[in-house]
């Protein structure tokens, strides 16, 4: 029941909601609907796309904990979509920088990537998102098997680099980047705690003398979840 609800109602609605920040920027850029991007629309566009990249990264990282804490497995159907939106907003953020800031000067971009550390890590995070986006299909998940899970753990590195990129870019007011860092710390901390708990459970089972020599994990292997 809930699964049908997620597939037919929640996911489409979420898809539309994810488009809202982008539509606001498009509206503002063309002056529709009374939306104003202020005196420096290029800066507003770049910043909004960047912040929503981070927002979607963090929201994506919330899905698994939400699933585990509520037991509602169908929530996992949203994760891939949210992750791909993070990639989309990141790509648009970079494109805005390339077009409106660097005016398609690729040499200028490479110089920035080489000389400005915050751009180095931002660019690295973007590059890392590409294999994740490319392997997001069901076919890819089947092909990669266990390796898919390992590859997609890169999202933790990407999220850290993304928040750091924001922190380093800000002129002086670090409050917002620190809030993002705090939320990220919670989300990563949850996973660290969960991994530690699993290891504890395995040791307890090993103590009771189960199956350890063969190298089989005591907990059944989890196959990558289809979304």
């Amino acid at each position: 029941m809930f699964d049908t609800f997620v597939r037919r109602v929640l996911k489409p609605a979420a898809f539309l909601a994810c488009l809202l920040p982008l539509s606001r920027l498009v509206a503002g850029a063309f002056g529709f609907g009374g939306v104003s991007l202020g005196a420096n629309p290029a800066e507003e566009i770049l910043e909004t796309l960047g912040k929503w990249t981070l927002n979607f990264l963090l929201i994506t990282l919330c899905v698994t904990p939400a699933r585990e804490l509520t037991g509602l497995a169908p929530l996992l159907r949203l994760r891939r979509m949210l992750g791909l939106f993070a990639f989309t907003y990141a790509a648009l953020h970079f494109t805005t920088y390339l077009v409106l800031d660097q005016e398609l000067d690729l040499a200028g971009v490479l110089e920035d990537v080489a000389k400005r550390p915050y751009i180095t890590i931002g660019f690295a995070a973007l590059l890392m998102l590409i294999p994740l986006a490319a392997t997001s299909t069901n076919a890819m998940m089947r092909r990669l098997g266990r390796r898919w899970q390992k590859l997609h753990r890169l999202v933790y590195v990407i999220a850290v680099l993304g928040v750091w990129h924001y922190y380093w870019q800000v002129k002086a007011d670090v409050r917002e980047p620190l809030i993002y860092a705090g939320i990220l710390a919670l989300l990563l901390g949850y996973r660290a705690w969960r991994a530690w708990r699993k290891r504890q459970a395995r040791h307890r089972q090993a103590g009771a003398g189960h199956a350890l020599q063969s190298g089989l994990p005591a907990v059944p292997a989890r196959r990558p979840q289809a979304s």
Partner: protein
Amino acid sequence: MRKTGKNDPRPSEITPEAVYLNRRTLIAGAVAAGLLPSTGWAESGPTGPQLRHTRNAPLSTTETPNSWEDITTYNNYFEFGTEKADPAVNARAFRAQPWTVTVSGEAEVRGRFTLEDILKAHALEERIYRLRCVERWSMVIPWIGFPLGDFIRRFKPTSRARFVEFTTLHDPKRMPGQRYPVLEWPYREGLRMDEAMHPLAILGVGLYGRVLPNQSGAPLRLVVPWKYGMKSIKAIVKIAFTEKQPRNTWNVAIPDEYGFYMNVNPNVDHPRWSQARERRIGAGLFNEMQPTLMFNGYADQVASLYRGMDLAKYY
């Protein structure tokens, strides 16, 4: 009062404000002509009490000024919040009167003066200046003010006065941004005496022929157009003549990024970004980037102040 000179533009040559072309005016005009649906934008024009002034064409640029809307809604004024849109909102309740300025230090005349006392002795001029922020955006702004040099001469600084130091109001009750230590309050800036005496340096009291709005640094601010905008300190309450180079707030905050001189210089990068180009506000989304000019285009007038100085070292 400066008499009209032969270089002043004829009244017929002076473009009225209403005709300054900008994106929003064009769209508003199209709306009025029924060509575009109304977007609900209220393009605000200059408001506030008018200031009698003369035009100073020789010291003004002929570039089109940015709109009142852009100039008064896009402000770096952390005393009222760290987002560009914050000061226009958070400074609404700020009362810029009554206002006193304390003049102190190495000068024969010192004391506390009301703003009225200070302004009595000076005829106001319009100076249309470029303003370049260190963050790589720029505007053209029609200031109303008077030469800082004229002000300084009244106080007869001694030979020990090698610098002029300026301090902003420090009152977190009236300036809510000061409740958070994003910078060391109060904001402080300084100029070398020869920079302060330069004809381009003005004390600003108005904008577009009106009294300075709160978010633009009311009621008294500095405008030094050949330096990055941070040097043009706002809401001045103290002016001191000093022997030693004054602390300036951004240099205290991040010394390897912001120095004392902060001359606009496309050849000296900010550690985190290049300064070779800038974004001119209001030029249209795809037309905005343009080369940054040495000393913000005032090299002819000010380069001699820095002859022989290593501008990469003294940034």
